């Protein structure tokens, strides 16, 4: 990217310019706030991951192992709620987005730095409330809080729902901040069509956060009103409609799938072009396909409800519209493939994760078609096929991109390089472990094994055992990643300003950046991927 290059500022950077815990907890610096989100998300990921390992261990053999059925339901709820609300939704936007959005567009910070810090505090309040509720009270509804069970169960639904409401508030504030930042703080010459594709992805995500999350908030409050005041909204006994809850819930939660995956696609766009050393193919198509996915995502929520009692006509309409999601998604995939064509590809660890994303997300997307078709969904619904599908999208997609983005930007964030061989090894463990864990679940689902059950018939045992062994490989991969992070921070070589030869603005400043990002305000004179 053609810019006036910032001069080196010596050793003063955003990490060491201010000292002490107070300087972190009161910092308005988007980079420090991004790191605080990172530590929070890593902590919750550890909790959610441990819950997943427990579930898989319980399912190693048929019959109860060490959990009772009720405990199994609770651990399942912990895993789902933690991973969705505290890890995958905030993962890329709040960590990498906070850190790199202003750097990408040549700004000194986000538009509302105080609101940004408030978002983190609101998120932490909601997350800790949720975590403490889960570990001190029983909650067994799953992360979807479906009525009428969530109205009748004696567990701590109200506290948990309020925690989700509070975390949703944080998500809205972050989204608002990003939208205003993109519109108001771009550097001179940084037109919309010169923005990195990661920024386009964050922008599309922010629109979803602002438009869809309030509906979840209101829905959860209606649920609380029904439980506490007896207002008849969702409970048939009070004249309500339980299917209406699913409409309201999925109106948010389907776009939420794209809140999770769109930023991941933005990261992958950056990785593919950087490690192919080639101008990205179809920049405009990729940028607008992010907006396209965001738009279409508001019209397809009913495909989660084909067997809920929803009318056949509504099912047909939602099934048809769901197919449209494939268009902007395929645009991205084909443009990434075209970018790779005749590129100077180097398979460093971030690129391995990007390749992993493309491979796994393609499987997740294609199996989504089977679930979008009414006739096949009736068979696959609520089986392990669905579990495998959404893990291929969420873990194979979002977490792969998060890891790739993390390894890509690690040198910029901390000014240190990590052990590349070990980083590649983490990819092998996670990628292989992921497929060993979840591919057998497609077969289990097709064989009819229902999900969310703590027991199963002996015919399913061998595939379940394979799946459990896979979860150990994934766990090893993430533990190894933690080691790579710590070792890099402690003993890593000093990172140069631009170790990958990237073209976007953040690589024109020293690693790590100074508090105000740029010593000289950048003037952008070309697009973000001018390789050749």
């Amino acid at each position, binding site marked *: 990217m053609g810019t006036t290059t910032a001069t080196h500022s010596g050793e003063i950077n955003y990490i060491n310019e201010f000292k002490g815990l107070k300087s972190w907890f009161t910092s*308005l610096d988007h980079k420090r706030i991004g790191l605080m989100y990172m530590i929070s998300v890593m902590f919750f990921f550890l909790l959610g991951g441990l819950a997943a390992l427990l579930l898989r261990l319980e399912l190693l053999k048929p019959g109860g192992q060490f959990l009772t059925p009720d405990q199994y339901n609770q651990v399942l709820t912990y895993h789902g709620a933690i991973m969705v609300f505290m890890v995958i939704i905030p993962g890329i936007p709040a960590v990498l987005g906070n850190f790199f959005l202003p750097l990408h567009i040549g700004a000194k*910070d986000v538009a509302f730095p105080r609101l940004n810090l408030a978002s983190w505090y609101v998120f932490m309040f909601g997350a800790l409330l949720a975590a403490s509720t889960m570990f001190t009270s029983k909650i067994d509804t799953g992360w979807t809080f479906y009525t009428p069970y969530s109205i009748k169960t004696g567990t701590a639904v109200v506290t948990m729902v309020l925690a989700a409401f509070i975390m949703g508030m944080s998500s809205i504030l972050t989204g608002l901040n990003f939208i205003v930042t993109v*519109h108001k703080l771009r550097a001179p*010459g940084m037109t919309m069509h010169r923005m990195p594709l990661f920024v386009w992805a964050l922008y599309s995500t922010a629109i979803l956060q602002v438009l869809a999350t309030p509906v979840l908030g209101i829905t959860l409050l209606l649920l609380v009103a029904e439980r506490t005041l007896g207002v008849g909204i969702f409970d048939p006994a009070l004249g309500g409609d339980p299917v209406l809850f699913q409409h309201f819930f999925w109106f948010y939660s389907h776009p939420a799938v794209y809140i999770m995956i769109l930023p991941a696609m933005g990261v992958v766009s950056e990785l593919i072009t950087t490690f192919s050393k080639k101008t990205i193919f179809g920049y405009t198509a990729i940028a607008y396909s992010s907006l396209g996915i965001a738009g279409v995502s508001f019209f397809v929520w009913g495909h989660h409800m084909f067997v809920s009692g*929803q009318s056949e*006509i509504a099912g047909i309409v939602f099934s048809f519209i769901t197919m449209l999601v494939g268009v902007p998604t395929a645009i991205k995939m084909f443009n990434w493939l075209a970018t790779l064509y005749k590129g100077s590809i180097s398979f460093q660890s971030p690129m391995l994760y990007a390749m992993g994303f493309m491979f796994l997300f393609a499987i997740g997307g294609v199996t989504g078609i089977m679930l979008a078709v009414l006739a096949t969904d009736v068979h696959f619904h609520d089986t392990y096929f669905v579990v495998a599908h959404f893990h291929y999208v969420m873990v194979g997609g979002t977490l792969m991109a998060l890891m790739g983005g993390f390894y890509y930007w690690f040198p910029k964030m901390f000014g240190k390089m990590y052990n590349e061989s070990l980083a590649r090894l983490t990819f092998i463990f996670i990628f292989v472990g992921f497929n060993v864990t979840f591919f057998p679940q497609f077969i289990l689902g097709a064989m009819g094994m229902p999900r969310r059950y703590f027991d199963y018939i002996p015919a399913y045992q061998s595939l379940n055992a394979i799946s459990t062994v896979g979860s150990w490989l994934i766990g090893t991969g993430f533990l190894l990643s933690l080691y790579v992070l710590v070792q890099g921070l402690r003993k890593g070589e000093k990172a140069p300003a631009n170790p990958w030869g990237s073209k976007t603005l953040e690589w024109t400043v020293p690693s790590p950046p100074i508090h105000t990002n740029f010593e000289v*305000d950048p003037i952008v004179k070309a697009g973000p991927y001018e390789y050749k």
Partner: protein
Amino acid sequence: MANTNSQHSGHGSSGHGGHHIIPFQIYIKVAAALIVLTFATVFFHWLHLGALAAPVAFLIAAVKAALVMLFFMGLKYDDKLNQVIFGCGFFFLLVLFGFSALDIWTRIKEISTL
């Protein structure tokens, strides 16, 4: 920090010049309209309109929300972009109501024995 940057945001900024002063009389009239519409909501509730009760209540609520946004929040005199953003919010709300209604109405027809 943000102010420094906004000085060189040029392209992205769509700023609007002066702040429009809304005459006090308009505020009074809008407030009166909101009160009348509140009474109208209660009145139509008493009429027991059956299937029409919810659409009528939603219609009155939509008119009240529009009055608040247009005059109390000054959207009528604001930037076009902000109007579009507000419009998007209402459009997607209509999508939610529309598709939910499609399901409920057709579901009742499919399962009704009448």
